[in-house]
């Protein structure tokens, strides 16, 4: 296949979301680890831990969302 603008756009979009998801993936994994450990040590606090865990996951996930936005812009707008 000839390397056209279209091909480069698709490749860039794939790379953007693929590489952009690595960091948040590790981050969310670490949050889950911390949450599970905290719940194991102090099961009574599981409600508060869940709240804080979801909040932290959301912040980590936001980075992946920016990568998603970039990928969508590359495919549909650029």
């Amino acid at each position, binding site marked *: 296949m000839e390397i056209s603008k279209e091909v480069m756009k698709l490749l860039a979009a794939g790379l953007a979301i693929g590489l952009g998801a690595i960091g948040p993936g590790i981050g969310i994994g670490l949050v889950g680890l911390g949450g599970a450990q905290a719940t194991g040590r102090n099961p009574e606090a599981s*409600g508060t831990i869940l*709240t804080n865990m*979801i*909040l932290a*996951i*959301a912040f980590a996930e*936001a980075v992946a*969302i*920016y990568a998603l936005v970039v990928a969508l812009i590359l495919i549909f707008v650029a």
Partner: protein
Amino acid sequence: MKRVAKVLAVLVLIGLCAFSCVIGPLGQGQVVRPHIQMAAEEVPIGPLHVPNTLIGLLLADLVLIGLFLAGTRHIRAGRPEAMVPRGLQNLVEAIYEFLANFLRGILGERAEKMLPLLITFFLFILVANWIELFPGFDTVGLIEPVHEGEGHAVRSVGPLIFLTHEPGEYTLVPFLRAANTDLNVPLALALISVFMTQVYGVQALGWGYFSRFINIKALTSGGFMGLMNFLVGLLETLSEFTKIISFGFRLFGNIFAGMVLLLVISSLVPFVAPVVFYILELFVGAVQALVFMMLTAAFTAVATAGHGEHH
């Protein structure tokens, strides 16, 4: 006898899987590759061109309103049997109480004023996500000539018309599609969420709430730390706008990706395999609804907490 039936059922399932993976594609049973489009398809209804996500949204509204009107009819009529809830009223009350207690745990006594908004967020997003999983969504619609991209040939069986895997010039415009697969709906929800956070902040703290963003007092108090506090305020302002983006795209991305996943898996292995992903989508839909509600609650909790009280 029961065991034989079980073994038979498993064998039939394996057979269907094998058919769909191997034998099907070789013969006429090859399935249609899905056409994936980010913007909502438009269904002509009379003179109007209605986006199919709008129909999905109205359907979700109808389900929710119907459920809660039916569930609260004894309460609204003031009948004595409302005191001892039965049937649907029990369900509706259980849902409400579970969510309300959950939110009271996060927000404390500030929760009461925000409960209607937060619970509406949760229930609406949940129903709008789960409604996607009903048969007929994304699969039943009008066969129209394709404008761009590749089309399919059609084959009619009785009064029904099916797309086939052969290339042609027709495509499917589904009647129904989940509301959150259209970026407009999650963005609207995100705008409501962020705007109401500001409203609750002003209600709790008065106009001094905005000193969170433009901190003149810190700037005029002078010194390096004063300047830093002012700049942190500017960062807060920026983060309000990124909140809109991350709220909107989180919901959209998850539900749109779910739709694409289901369509692709259904076209690769039409039997049994999609069930696993349907279960995953049930989970994702609920988690996204929960996350939207929880994040709004958490941001509101931050916004209504007095600024500078902790000094």
